[in-house]
């Protein structure tokens, strides 16, 4: 068994119109920029996929990565905790124009909903958001004298994830704080494709160091020296590049 995918286009080739796609990362750290751009390439070439529901902590920064996916008009709805960034113009304009739907979720609740989705837990109770606007309409229960809000699991058709090392069985390690939502999203999607800086043979990763076991991963594609959103934005990059 070898989960290696030949290229980025193959990795994102199964994402259809209307699917829910989790995209890893927190801001730029751990964001699978190359996978996102491959998805945009497919849309530019074929007009698909569109009407995506995207789950990410943020709403993109500048005109690359997630912001570029939104700017291309591929995203119908965003589920996130913090749709602001240094340069949030893409999401802000589309949201204020009513062209994109937003489901705002507290960050810890977002993480736990994704974890629950991957763990087969349909709902859970959290103190977060009790008594606030974000708890409106949700069931509340009292446990040991304190009120908790019921939240539902979050699952996806696809997860696009960035990791550091991956072996051909899909076992993954991450680099520093680029881990963030990525391991949770691997668990919560029917199909998880991962861009890694290097694909290695089974046994090359110390079993003690595996963060995401390969059972949660369906495909790995090698992207050496992946782009960092922050560096792209400092260079005023756009995707797709605009012909001058």
């Amino acid at each position, binding site marked *: 068994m070898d989960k290696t995918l030949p290229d980025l286009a193959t990795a994102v080739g199964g994402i259809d119109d209307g699917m829910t796609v989790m995209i890893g990362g927190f*801001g730029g750290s751990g964001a699978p920029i190359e996978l996102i751009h491959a998805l945009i390439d497919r849309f530019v070439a074929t007009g698909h996929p569109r009407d995506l529901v995207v789950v990410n902590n943020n709403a993109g920064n500048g005109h690359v990565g997630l912001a570029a996916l939104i700017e291309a008009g591929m995203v119908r709805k965003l589920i996130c905790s913090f749709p602001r960034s240094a340069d949030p113009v893409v999401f802000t304009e589309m949201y204020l124009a009513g062209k994109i739907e937003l489901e*705002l*979720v507290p*960050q810890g609740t977002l993480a736990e909903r994704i974890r629950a989705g991957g763990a087969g837990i349909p709902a859970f109770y959290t103190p*977060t958001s009790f008594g*606030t606007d974000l708890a409106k309409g949700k069931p509340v229960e009292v446990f040991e004298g304190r009120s908790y809000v019921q939240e539902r699991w979050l699952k996806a058709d696809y997860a696009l994830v960035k990791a550091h090392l991956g072996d051909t069985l899909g076992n993954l390690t991450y680099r520093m704080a680029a881990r963030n939502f990525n391991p949770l999203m691997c668990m919560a999607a029917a199909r998880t494709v991962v861009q890694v800086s290097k694909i290695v043979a089974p046994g090359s990763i110390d079993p003690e160091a595996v*963060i995401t076991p390969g059972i949660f991963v369906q495909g790995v594609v090698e992207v050496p020296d992946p782009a960092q959103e922050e560096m792209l934005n400092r260079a005023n990059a756009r995707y797709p590049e605009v012909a001058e």
Partner: protein
Amino acid sequence: MTAKLSPTQIAWRAAQDIADGAYVNLGIGFPEMVAKFQPPGRQAIFHTENGILGFGEAPAAGSEDWDLINAGKKAVTIKPGTAFFHHADSFAMVRGGHLDVAILGAYEVAENGDLANWSTGPKGVPAVGGAMDLVHGAKRVAVITDHVTKDGKPKLVQRCSLPLTGVGCVTRIYSSHAVVDIEGGRFVLREKLPHLSVDELQAMTGAAMIVPAAPADLIVPEL
């Protein structure tokens, strides 16, 4: 004489109450300054929502590693003892009662401990981040804030008028003029700037304070 404390001085005062070895989350922006003023001999361990415990200061410009950032998306560093973890573990630390202190900014704090610090109303793009999680679980939830708004209205109020971040969650307020605890649904004055009378402070405060016989002087060095 100090008319009021600067944000830096408020951060300094808040830092004096953080014990050696405490696990601390500092909110994005102004609260991040608290880390600079740990008293000598004490070392708190700072938590950031995106999955780092025990991170170090900002690196020199040009040596940033963009896989190593804090919740404010600013570059940080590692130091001996740093730990990385994923987001579900990070918020387990928050909600599970494992953090000793969370220090947050505020638009309004009410005498019943309610906090409003995430939304100024329905205009624009709403964004909550980790604010609603952070107000639950830390053993102490403290707020650092100006005592009044830019146009002079009290930020310490009877009931919040802005959308709530959390209900009954704040335990202490470090303001530009005073240190105020929240106990039993009331503001309790602990320290005030020496030149300020209790009456003057009460006039800037949106709910009646319980004032002990002799509130301590709030004395902060020039920074």
